[in-house]
């Protein structure tokens, strides 16, 4: 029986509790769907106007904007109950290590009352009808999925209870559920699986349901290990390069000596094609593709190619030229008021790579009338549409499968590698399994661009009067569709207007959590054609690091302890609470030897709050500890991360994200950067790009997940990076007595011998047995 919106017919258990709408779908076994819009805002709020007036981040942040973007869509997301008693759900988000599949399985287990190991999550193919709902970024996944997935699961459980009640001739209210079994006090029981068919609907009807109160949660809020952990530790988890698609043979590309360079001539394509194991050679947009029996033979083949190149899009640029352009483009600061004192500082942040450990890869099978793609894609719809245009095929003839990724950190917002695989497959007329080489990933892959942040704060009589921050960055590309989402959604928002997408994103993600009087933060961009993109936490790591260093300076100028100063000026009680907890757990102020110091960083974003307190050892015996081909330098010896995630759904997963964010922050502060020289990064491997290693990571890490503070989960995948970066920077400043102004600290030293630029991929070593242990 169909139910009408706003007139629920099921017995109202609690008339004050909001009901959520969904559909029983016509299907062989019980299947439930919810529309995104109804579920995100609830039945009563679905038609509510876009909140206004939009304000900077603390009122309305990036994740909210993404939720709004979801409103107009009509695609259903659904939970299915199978005859074997399991439930399945095709997730329209991408798992790249952040634990989204585990969090969603918990939501389903909770509302469906089913053991979590009976919940199967797969990743949905590109579904154009979902529009921008199918974007994994901005730490928005858990926030926007929380209500729809629970609604679908609750509807499924309700339908199972109704079915059992009808079969047993008892009131629905007397049917209970526990771990996938329905029961009545008369002793009757039935498994979900046994009723999966009977509970199915033969037509699609609208129904409504109330959700469990947070206080009744049995699964959500409790620590849960990852659902894919067993597959991972046994080597069974399949990443893109592990998939076996018939005849999709290995393929790699010889690349130019400058970013986005192009091929002028290839002198020996036929000779390379005749090399052992090589099947095809083809010139493509940014290089020469080689397909063969093994990736090893592809490397040999691409190295043997004799190619002349046209210069790339930034051929003349190096670190110094980019920096000079950034400084020229800085927006002016307002002069200090008469009589006020000021703190002025300028910080430079080098290019950084978001390179995941799994090199970019994609499988493409392009035929004359259709194409099939497999890749890790966070915006699969965008990929599908672009690749269809590129291949000259209708979009519905391009099937795009989303594969779990070995990390992302923003890289998979773009589909460069999938588009390239499609191009190669079309040109060769054969399926290919394309992998970028490690060196390609660093030298030609997306980067977080160099930026400069200038800050001026003025103070008078113990008060801060103004805080101005002028951030100027080499352009960050948002061409992956986030921009499209914002045009479509935010066109009616006053903040859109004259601002570019980047400025909109900047304003939506940045806010100063202190009462510093007149506060302005502005972004300017220099349009250089590097391959850029959002890296974990986008602008925040740089902006927040600069801010927290200036906060320390202000505290010193006003003669206050940095913690006491922050407590006094903080606007946000949740931040004050995480600060207090970090101070207690991290033992702020404990006695440390000379050359070792503590530092603090605070950040609020994605409706969450985090404080990081670290200790950095800058004594010469530590800085100069020997590690072969590694960068040692100052060491973070102890770290405390305290997070208020609003409503923590999986404290164990949150803890993992905090540890990951901490290690990213340490890398950005101390060791990891790209050196641009003559149009290309010099870095070519992990012994050049110094992401945190075991010898850099703190041996003592403490993470505290605060009890729930709001009714809603906040974003968690990125938030710790900015606070950790700031904490390490402030600790370093205190340990050395000098405020650092250029990051990472190690950037001014080139700590490695760069690989030659050509051939673009180095040969694999042959002496691997010598390092066996």
């Amino acid at each position, binding site marked *: 029986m169909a139910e009408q919106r706003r007139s629920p017919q099921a017995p109202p258990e609690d008339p004050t509790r909001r009901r959520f709408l969904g559909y029983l779908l016509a299907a062989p076994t019980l299947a439930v769907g919810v529309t995104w819009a109804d579920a995100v805002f609830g039945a009563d709020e679905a038609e509510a106007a876009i909140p206004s007036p939009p304000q900077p981040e603390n009122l309305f942040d990036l994740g909210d904007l993404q939720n709004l973007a979801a409103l107009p869509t009509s695609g259903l997301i659904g939970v299915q109950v199978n005859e074997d008693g399991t439930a399945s759900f095709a997730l329209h988000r991408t798992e790249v290590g952040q634990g989204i599949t585990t969090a969603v399985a918990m939501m389903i287990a909770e509302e469906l009352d089913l053991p979590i190991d009976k919940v199967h999550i797969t990743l949905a193919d590109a579904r154009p009808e979902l529009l921008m709902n199918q974007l994994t970024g901005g730490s928005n996944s858990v926030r926007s999925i929380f209500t729809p997935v629970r609604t679908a699961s609750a509807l499924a459980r309700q339908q199972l209870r109704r079915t059992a009640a009808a079969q047993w001739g008892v009131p629905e209210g007397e049917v209970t559920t526990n771990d996938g079994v329905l029961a009545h006090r008369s002793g009757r029981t039935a498994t979900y699986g046994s009723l999966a068919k009977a509970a199915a609907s033969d037509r699609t009807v609208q129904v409504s349901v109330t959700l469990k109160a947070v206080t009744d949660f049995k699964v959500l809020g409790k620590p849960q290990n990852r659902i894919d952990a067993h597959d991972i530790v*046994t080597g069974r988890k399949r990443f893109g390069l*592990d998939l076996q698609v018939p005849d999709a043979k290995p393929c790699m590309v010889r690349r130019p000596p400058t970013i986005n360079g192009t091929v002028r001539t290839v002198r020996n394509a036929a000779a390379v094609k005749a090399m052992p194991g090589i099947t095809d050679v083809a010139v493509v947009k940014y290089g020469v593709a080689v397909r063969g029996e*093994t990736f090893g033979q592809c490397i040999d083949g691409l190295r043997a190619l004799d190619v002349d190149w046209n210069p790339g899009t930034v051929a003349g640029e190096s670190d110094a030229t980019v920096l000079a352009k950034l400084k020229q483009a800085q927006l002016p600061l307002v002069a200090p008021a008469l009589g006020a004192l000021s703190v002025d500082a300028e910080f430079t942040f080098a290019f950084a790579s978001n390179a995941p450990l799994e090199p970019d890869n994609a499988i493409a099978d392009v035929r004359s009338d259709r194409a099939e793609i497999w890749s890790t894609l966070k915006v699969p719809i965008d990929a599908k549409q672009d690749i269809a245009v590129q291949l000259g095929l209708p979009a519905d003839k391009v099937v795009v499968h989303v594969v779990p990724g070995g990390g992302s950190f923003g890289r998979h917002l773009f589909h460069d590698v999938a588009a390239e695989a499609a191009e190669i497959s079309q040109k060769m007329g054969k399926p290919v399994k394309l992998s970028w080489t490690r060196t390609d990933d660093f030298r030609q892959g997306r980067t977080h661009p160099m930026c400069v942040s200038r800050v001026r704060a003025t103070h008078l009589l113990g008060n801060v009067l103004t805080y101005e921050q002028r951030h100027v960055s080499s352009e960050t590309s948002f061409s992956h569709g986030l921009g499209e989402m914002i045009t479509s959604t935010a066109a009616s928002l006053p903040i859109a207007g004259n601002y570019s997408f980047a400025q909109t994103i900047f304003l939506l993600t940045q806010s100063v959590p202190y009462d510093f009087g007149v506060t302005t933060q502005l972004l300017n961009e220099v349009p250089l054609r590097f391959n850029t993109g959002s890296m974990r936490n986008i602008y925040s790591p740089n902006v927040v690091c600069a801010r927290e260093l200036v906060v320390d300076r202000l505290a010193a100028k006003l003669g206050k302890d940095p913690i006491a100063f922050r407590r006094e000026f903080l606007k946000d009680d949740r931040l004050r609470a995480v600060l207090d907890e970090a101070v207690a757990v991290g033992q702020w102020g404990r006695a440390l030897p000379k050359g070792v110091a503590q530092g603090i960083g605070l950040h609020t974003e994605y409706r969450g709050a985090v404080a990081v307190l670290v200790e950095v050892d800058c004594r010469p015996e530590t800085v100069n500890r020997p590690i072969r081909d590694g960068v040692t330098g100052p060491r973070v010896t102890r770290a405390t991360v305290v997070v208020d995630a609003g409503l923590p759904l999986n404290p164990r997963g949150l803890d993992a994200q905090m540890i990951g964010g901490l290690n990213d922050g340490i890398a950005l502060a101390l060791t990891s950067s790209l050196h641009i020289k003559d149009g290309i990064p010099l870095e070519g491997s992990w012994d050049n790009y110094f992401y945190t290693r075991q010898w850099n990571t703190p041996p003592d890490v403490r993470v505290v997940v605060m009890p729930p503070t709001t009714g809603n989960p906040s974003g968690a995948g990125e938030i710790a990076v900015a606070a950790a970066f700031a904490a390490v920077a402030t600790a370093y400043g205190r340990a050395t007595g000098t405020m650092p102004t250029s990051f990472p600290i190690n950037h001014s030293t080139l700590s490695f011998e760069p690989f030659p630029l050509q051939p673009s991929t180095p040969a694999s070593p042959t002496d691997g047995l010598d390092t*066996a242990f």
Partner: protein
Amino acid sequence: MAQHTFVLNGARVTVEVADDVRLLWVLRDILGVTGPKYGCGLNVCKSCTSHINGKAFNPCSVPVSKIKETDEITTIEGLPATVGRDLHPMQEAWLEEDVSQCGYCQPGQIMAAVALVRKAKAEGRQITDADLDGLRNICRCGTYSRIRTAIKKGAARM
């Protein structure tokens, strides 16, 4: 093309492939054993770490011709069988500590950890923080502290 024979996860295998193809590609592309991951091909990231006669090594940097007929290669897939169980104690520790994030580095991390603990035990000593600092395996998701905890736990049961 040359034939190459060796013992892989307890079974004798023979492949036909050119001498200089690195073992990683023989395992992954020819034999379909995908537990060892490609992260660099340069003996740097260590995500391909496997065992040769019980010692950790990186097959991305060893030509197949250097593998002898009697050499026993163990990948993550064959690790549990070396102790005659469904899971090696190190894998169990990894599950208990919920070490993994994306998981890409983890087969290599576990294989390196097992070798490190065996080496320390052979030297008659416990794993130290200095030993852990010396592990070169990259984890780009930054799971390092859980790896350290898991190794100590796994070591106690090996």
